[in-house]
């Protein structure tokens, strides 16, 4: 008996989902596009939300920014749930390794007391700022429109929660008894932190998701992260024996640089759509960047002393350049 085996090639009838093919044509598509494009529910919502009857459940009118296609606000990192979690898991492993390195060699005890106190005083209240950023990005996700825009906002919210947790863990590692309580106390009562606290609390009630995106992710974080992690932790603490603090906060500047690519890409696409959008986003940016700069001035002063004002001005110049590159008229 003779069995003859043959390879048969079977052509697929369609290469991707119809909702993706409508955007890209019928060709094999990336997992990112399949998880993002055309996922936003657009019709048949039956009831209006009781808490906001002037809008539909999902409504493009919640923001003043006008987009013909909300799926155009793509994330250059191409994050969807699976590859975002894998990327963060890798970074978490690196952070664990840093903790092990610092703890096994007793590097915390080698930090001079002045630097240790400075690290606690400057970083601990920022847990609350990070929590505010988490809340704001949840709002962007819930009030925004289009999966391309809202899904990365939710990832961004969880990343902010991670930042808050890393700061918490740093406070515990620095071993100052009550460092976390002292940080909360400063956040609530120290006049130095009240301007920033007011700004964070004011943004919590901003209703327009895109305005909030500009305020939190571009203006406030765009100033805060370079000021705190580049100027204060890396350039100031690390050279004075505080290398351990830089190691235990390594995630923050790395994550800020990575997520800035997403923020810039969203701003760039939205601003390029129309002159109205460009003017609107530019206005928001100027307003909130000024507020954030004023709010961070006392913090810069505490962190860097005499060089604080200069460092903050440098960071603002760099942020303005970033905004110009994204097509804003700054």
């Amino acid at each position, binding site marked *: 008996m003779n069995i003859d085996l043959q*390879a*048969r*090639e079977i052509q697929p009838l369609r290469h991707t989902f119809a909702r993706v093919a409508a955007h890209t044509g019928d060709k*094999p598509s*990336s*997992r*990112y596009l399949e998880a993002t494009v055309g996922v936003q529910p657009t019709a048949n919502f039956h009831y209006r939300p009781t808490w906001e009857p002037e809008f539909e459940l999902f409504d493009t009118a919640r923001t003043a920014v006008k987009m013909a296609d909300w799926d155009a606000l793509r*994330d*250059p*990192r*191409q994050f969807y749930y699976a*590859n975002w979690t894998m990327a963060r898991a890798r970074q978490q492993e690196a952070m664990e390794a840093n903790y092990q390195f610092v703890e096994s060699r007793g590097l915390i005890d080698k930090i001079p007391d002045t630097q240790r106190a400075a690290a606690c005083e400057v970083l601990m209240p920022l847990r609350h700022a990070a929590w505010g950023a988490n809340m704001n990005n949840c709002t962007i996700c819930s009030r925004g429109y289009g999966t391309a825009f809202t899904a990365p906002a939710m990832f961004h919210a969880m990343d902010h929660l991670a930042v808050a947790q890393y700061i918490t863990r740093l406070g515990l590692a620095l071993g100052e008894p009550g460092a976390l309580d002292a940080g909360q106390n400063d956040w609530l009562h120290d006049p130095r932190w009240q301007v920033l606290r007011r700004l964070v609390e004011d943004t919590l009630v901003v209703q327009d998701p895109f305005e909030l995106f500009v305020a939190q992710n571009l203006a406030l974080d765009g100033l805060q992260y370079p000021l705190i992690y580049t100027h204060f932790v890396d350039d100031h603490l690390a050279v004075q024996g505080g290398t351990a603090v830089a190691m235990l906060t390594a995630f923050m500047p790395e994550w800020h640089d990575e997520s800035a690519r997403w923020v810039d890409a969203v701003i760039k696409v939205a601003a390029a759509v129309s002159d109205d959008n460009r003017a609107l986003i530019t206005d928001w940016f100027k307003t909130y960047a000024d507020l954030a700069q004023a709010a961070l001035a006392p913090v810069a002063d505490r962190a860097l002393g005499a060089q604080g004002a200069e460092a903050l001005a440098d960071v603002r110049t760099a942020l303005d350049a970033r905004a110009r590159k994204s097509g804003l008229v700054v």
Partner: protein
Amino acid sequence: MNASTVSAVSSVFIAFQDNEESRPVVDAILADNAQASATYPPGLVKINAPGRLVIRRETIEEQTGQRFNLQQLHVNLVTLSGYIDEDDDEFSLSWQH
């Protein structure tokens, strides 16, 4: 060497498993090599190019938005022909030795 063989350019080829991971690599090759053409034998994607074929790390990174180490190609690489010249940024196949 006589005149008739000098004018004919030998082609190089490279073949990958046809899957999600190799798609951005294939797209990058087709973007960087104007004369390259892809065929799809069962389970594979095979790219032919006359004379020379180059794979650039930067182009792959543009496709995926993630950092890419050129050594990652080898995970899905099936076969190739030509002399290999590789560094951190480019992987090229050609018959110039």
